[in-house]
């Protein structure tokens, strides 16, 4: 018997515009101890489903039909008294943001002990023992001291471990996880995913994992469901879903992800055209109809498409699944021509660039003697976890901040100590930036064409009104937006559209160097692919040098020509992208690579997990910055002496005490299981 059985669930919301079926019809079974992953873009109804299962529908939502059978009880009709026993007892949930899941005014111990006392009627002493035991289970060192701490005294990863511990305390049979690792650093994420796999075996808890990240789902789940417009469109064992996806939407999602080993020259990303229809606006027959390249009139729009079995355990809701069976070959769209390998001109040269912030009497070195170059027309990616100083460097380069020492040559002039106000107009136009947050990048008070027109005037590209208008239209066309959009206000645009405007704005002054600070990390995967394709196309057409700041190594592998890996304000390794993703590795790069959630269960990755926390930037180790967490630490020399720069040839430089010969002997992180 299945643990959770959702039968023909229909969830409706009452809005000012009438009743909207956020979930028109949804069926799903999860067995005891199973690990099920649900993916889909935002707006597909994943969160609504979780809310329905947990009975948090709000005043305007209701279950309008069907049933949610959990351990034989229908949750859709449970009384408040029953819910008290179920929530936190039989079903527990872990949300995305661990900081808001914990009460800031209570110690971790108090919050954990509440669970067995409320759900198991345990005594205080019993509750304490159980809380300490579960904290040890989630691998928090020194549970006794963690119990006495307040949430703000823990890091994000530690807080999420506490939340998971709290969820497991009552021994629930079902654990709902709503994007539990989004917002965590990639190494922390990998450790949390490992933990979930381990706990699942130990506690026998069924997992219902919701994520927009197929890579993460692939690490944790046996079975994966793909949700679109409130319906399950594909349901398959994890391996089958990645090997032979049947639904065009599933294929679209997989196509918008950079695969391991693929790059922009060989496997361009393919985005899904169009947008997720708003709740209740999807076609009745097949929700994906309007965005599907394979849709056929008369077949796809006739009647509601039923879920059909492809093979044992693999279900798909597509009228043409049998005809479109073969996995699509790599489409040859948006291919970026490989860059000529001859020595390109150096556009930016950082030489011992440092940015120091005085903090009281101490010094915080956000950037510590950075040295690397960016070549004309190339994509230089700077990767690192939060706190690595990559965004600080982006600001220094763009002139939003100034370096405190060192030399930063951009197009022949030293701009290290010069913020925009001290740079010439031509230099400012030549170095532009695209920011991370689509919601903050445009001024909500001005129409989206305004910053474009303003930039054109300020940089002297166009002065006459007619000229400016024509240029604005050309810029919008360049980012594939209709010219009519220039009069729209930012709030009328989607996140992807806002980032397109931001790209157009950056290109208004014909920049030589574009700094992009995590430009797609806040976007959905399919939108991410479209924006990346667009950015790379414009960059290649204009011969612009792109400095791409990212924490996503999969994306970096895909788009970069050269990579710089940063940790705690210093460069650990730098070199051409191909060299970086194969041995010899810097131990930190190796750990970062092995933490990447790969959307391919057939790929085996070396498992290296970093211990401990990133040291405070105010109190950095005197030797190698990475020594405190390095799994390959040699000994005292790493703690005391800054590592030498080892040249591995072909501009590949590794800052490590370990001799190159030994670094060369490590196995590649990604290997095919065959």
């Amino acid at each position, binding site marked *: 018997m299945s643990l959770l059985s959702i039968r023909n669930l229909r969830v409706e919301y009452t809005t000012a515009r009438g009743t909207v079926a956020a979930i028109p019809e949804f069926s799903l079974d999860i067995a005891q101890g199973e690990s099920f992953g649900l993916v889909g873009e935002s707006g597909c109804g994943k969160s609504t489903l979780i809310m329905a299962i947990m009975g948090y529908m709000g005043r305007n939502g209701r279950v309008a039909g069907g049933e949610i059978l959990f351990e034989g009880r229908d949750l859709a009709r449970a009384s408040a008294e029953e819910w008290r026993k179920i929530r936190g007892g039989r079903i527990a949930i872990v949300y995305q943001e661990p900081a808001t899941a914990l009460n800031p005014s209570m110690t971790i111990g108090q919050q954990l002990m509440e669970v067995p006392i409320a759900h198991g009627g345990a005594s205080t002493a019993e509750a304490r023992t159980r809380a300490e035991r579960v904290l040890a289970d989630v691998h928090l060192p020194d549970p006794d001291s963690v119990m006495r701490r307040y949430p703000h005294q823990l890091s994000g990863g530690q807080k999420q471990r506490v939340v998971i511990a709290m969820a497991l305390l009552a021994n629930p049979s079902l654990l709902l996880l709503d994007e539990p690792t989004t917002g965590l650093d990639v190494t922390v994420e990998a450790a949390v995913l490992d933990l979930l796999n381990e706990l699942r075996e130990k506690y026998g808890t069924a997992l219902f994992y919701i994520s927009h990240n197929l890579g993460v789902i692939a690490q944790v789940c046996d079975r994966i469901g793909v949700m679109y417009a409130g319906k399950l469109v594909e349901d398959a064992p994890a391996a089958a879903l990645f090997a032979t996806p049947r639904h065009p939407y599933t294929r679209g999602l997989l196509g918008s992800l950079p695969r391991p080993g693929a790059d922009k020259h060989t496997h361009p990303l393919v985005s899904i055209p169009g947008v997720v229809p708003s709740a209740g606006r999807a076609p009745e027959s097949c929700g994906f109809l309007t965005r599907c390249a394979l849709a056929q009139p008369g077949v796809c729009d006739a009647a509601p498409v039923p879920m059909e079995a492809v093979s044992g355990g693999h279900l798909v809701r597509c009228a043409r699944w049998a005809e479109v069976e073969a996995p699509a070959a790599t489409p040859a769209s948006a291919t970026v021509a490989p860059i000529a390998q001859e020595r390109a001109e150096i556009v930016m040269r950082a030489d011992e660039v440092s940015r120091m912030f005085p903090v009281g009497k101490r010094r915080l070195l956000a950037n510590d003697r950075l040295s690397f170059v960016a070549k004309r027309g190339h994509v230089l990616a700077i990767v690192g976890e939060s706190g690595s100083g990559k965004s600080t460097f982006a600001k220094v380069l763009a002139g939003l901040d100034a370096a405190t020492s060192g030399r930063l040559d951009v197009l022949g002039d030293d701009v290290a100590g010069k913020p925009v106000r001290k740079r010439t107009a031509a230099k*400012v136009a030549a170095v532009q930036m695209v920011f991370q947050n689509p919601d903050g990048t445009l001024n909500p008070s001005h129409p989206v064409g305004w910053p474009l027109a303003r930039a054109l005037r300020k940089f002297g590209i166009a002065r006459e009104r007619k000229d400016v208008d024509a240029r604005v239209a050309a810029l919008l066309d360049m980012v594939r937006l209709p010219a009519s959009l220039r009069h729209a206000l930012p709030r009328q645009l989607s996140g992807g559209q806002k980032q397109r405007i931001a790209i157009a704005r950056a290109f208004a002054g014909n920049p030589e160097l574009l700094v992009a600070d995590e430009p797609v990390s*806040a976007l959905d995967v399919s939108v991410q692919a479209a924006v990346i394709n667009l950015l790379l196309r414009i960059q290649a057409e204009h011969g612009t040098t792109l400095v791409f700041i990212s924490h996503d190594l999969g994306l970096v592998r895909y788009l970069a020509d050269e990579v710089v890996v940063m940790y705690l304000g210093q460069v650990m390794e730098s070199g051409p992208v191909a060299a970086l993703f194969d041995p010899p590795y810097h131990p930190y790069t190796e750990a970062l690579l092995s933490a990447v959630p790969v959307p391919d269960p057939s790929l085996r990755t070396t498992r290296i997990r970093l211990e401990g926390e990133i040291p405070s930037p105010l109190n950095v180790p005197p030797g190698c910055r990475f020594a405190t967490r390095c799994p390959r630490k040699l000994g005292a020399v790493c703690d005391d002496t800054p590592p030498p720069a080892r040249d591995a040839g072909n501009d590949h430089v590794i800052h490590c005490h370990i001799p190159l010969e030994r670094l060369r002997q490590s196995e590649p992180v990604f290997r095919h299981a065959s």
Partner: protein
Amino acid sequence: MSAPTATESAGRATPSLWRRLPSSPVAMVGLGIVLFWIVLALAAPLLPLAAPNAQDYMAMGHPGSSARHWLGVDPLGRDLLSRIIWGGRTVLAVAPLAVIVAYTVGCAMGLLAGYYRGWVDAAISRAADVILSFPVVVLYVILIANIGPSALNIVVAVVLASAPGIARIVRGLVLSLMHQEFVAAAYLRRESDVFVMLVELLPNCRGPLITDFCLRLGYTTITIGTLGFLGLGLPPPNPDWGGMVKQATSMITVFPHMSLYPTLALVSLILGFNLLADGITELSQAD
């Protein structure tokens, strides 16, 4: 939402606040009351009213309402209806003028403090704290008693008392807006400080400021009434709602209408401003 992601679906356009005003009954009632007084004040010279300072000695014996004097007369035999309507003219001219000037000063202070931080912020914020630490009425009494009662001095007093509060609101908004990336984008266009403050930052303070503006009009109306009642309003014989109440307080048990009608006028106008502010808050929160 499950993901911290922005969807590609285009959002629905929200019409401007003023066009949505009719959908809030509270705001419409407030607006109606305010418009009623504005129309009366504008039309005062055209209405068949007795002159506000003309004394009708015949009516003084029976100061209650009559066919000649609908609302009766005051202790000096002056027509109450006429004085209330003409008094409305001063309130409706002085209150918005004072608030607009206070806004100009307060916005400038707040923008400078929030934008430049450091010693500019320290100087402006401490000066504001000093002014805000005075009880408002005491501040008014000290000011007006020193510079003398007149319409201009009322404006000066209101500006001095209100600007620090406005500056605080604007400073807070500017501090949070400064972290937004569109400000960095403006620097990357080499925009000047003044441009960033006035064109990039100030328009985004609009929402909270519109509500505060309406509320402040109400407070200022109260202030003008209070000053009049304390004898610090417009000098006689100008019709002044607060002054009219004060003049009639000694007869409140005998002829309550003399203080009641000007009070009702004050209360209704203040209520109008406050309801309008409530309605606007409600509308902006529905966004």
